[in-house]
């Protein structure tokens, strides 16, 4: 199900003027098209790379 970015914008950042909002929504729709398949195919147990880098070298001193 695609997101209603206009509705989200009206709820979170209502101060965005209409002409600017249209451009913002177009970009987010395009990004959503690219990103949705990635997040939907993630294995359930994948953790985020919150500690970076996520592959510390064994020789890295503590």
């Amino acid at each position, binding site marked *: 199900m695609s997101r209603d970015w206009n509705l989200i914008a009206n709820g979170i*950042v209502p101060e965005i003027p209409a002409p*600017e909002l249209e451009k913002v929504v177009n*970009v987010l729709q395009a990004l959503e098209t*690219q*990103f949705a398949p990635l997040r939907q195919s993630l294995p359930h147990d994948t*953790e*985020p790379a919150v500690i970076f880098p996520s*592959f510390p*070298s064994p020789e*890295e001193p503590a």
Partner: protein
Amino acid sequence: MNLQEIAKALRKRTVSSVELASDSLRRIAALNPKLKAFITVTAELAQRQALEADQELSDGKDRGPLHGIPIAVKDVFCTQGIRTTCGSKLFGEHIPERDAAVVERLQAAGAVMVGKTNMHELAYGVTSANPHFGTVRNPWDLDRIAGGSSGGSGSAVAAGMVPIAMGSDTGGSIRIPASFCGTVGLKPSFGRVSRHGVLPLDFSLDHMGPLTQCVRDAALTLSAIAGFDPRDETCSRRPVELYLPSEPVSIQGLRIGLPENFYFERISPSVAEAVRRAARLAEEAGAVVVALRVPDIAQLNTIGRVILLSEASATMERYLRRREDFGADVLALFDQGRLLPATDYINAQRVRRVLQQEFQAIWRKVDCLFTPTTPTSAPKIGQSTIDLDGEEDVRIASTRLARGINVLGLPALSLPCGFDETGLPIGLQIIGPSFQEALVLKVGAALEDALSLSLQPSVL
């Protein structure tokens, strides 16, 4: 002259640091009205530091290869008592109380700071068309962008105003201006150089590094700025290596990967030919060129954008009600980031982990990768799209080959590898495994020697 030659001349007293600083300041005065490469020129500070540098050398105190060398830093690095704007109206009068870690290290190495360079507003873009401090122009063609966000640093080094200028790179912001301006640009591994005292754009993607006139100068600069800093929690404790390649430089037997997918798609023919020629030269120098497929870089770019939009908007949220203080392009990016749900950000970080692990497999097959840095040479100022098998936003196109490497945190070097049909420089990107800056710089130095390009921009 490269840094090593200047350093020798300083020690033989055939030139003084005061003379070098004066030359640099004269050149800035002559060219900056055209190029808009500097936001602030620190002439008095430079003259004082240069005098001290000369005095120290006379007294036998030698701080190493950067001693007495004029440098500039992007206006995103905090400088004690000197305005640090981040290219933004928001910080137009911001005078930090302390230096950034990189500035501290450059000063400890004896460098002489001549000024703060112009940039894309808040380091959030690639054109360096700054609405508050002017549009940075490319010394190779004044009607073209210098790239960004470290555009002033690229323009200043290319125009010979300074031999070294520091930049920051969140999605290509060191490498893209290096590619467009015909300079060297080094983005070190995440954690190699402290981010302390740099106005942040994105906590997990920001990297600090130099733009220089040659690869060996980048190596010497990295040696001065790299290393652990307890004030940056992501900074590595891994010891700093010798980054200057030992002479004669040999790349005999090194395996260089040439991607079969993504990196040579939708790029200009002259860029493709220049990078392939660089690979042939590497082969002639004894390296083994290996054609290989790389993990999906488009996916990396997608999650890189989700992470950047989210983190940058979180960082700047407190300022975003002051809409009139932002340029339109930057404000639109912050608006996009404010609308993305937290679940997207977390899921992008989860995909990031998967792709980091996938990319690790490459380093079992090759020692480094050769790719173009940018799909084209420098676009024109005001140009909004690039047509390469279909129109693409100039910002998306310019970052397409660079952004993913920030998501992975890998070291990447851009160096000039040829010219397009209009005489504009083309950048080669050398990507290595995490913390293998010495290898990347060695390969870069060997290529630079083999290419032996003459890099004299038209503005000179």
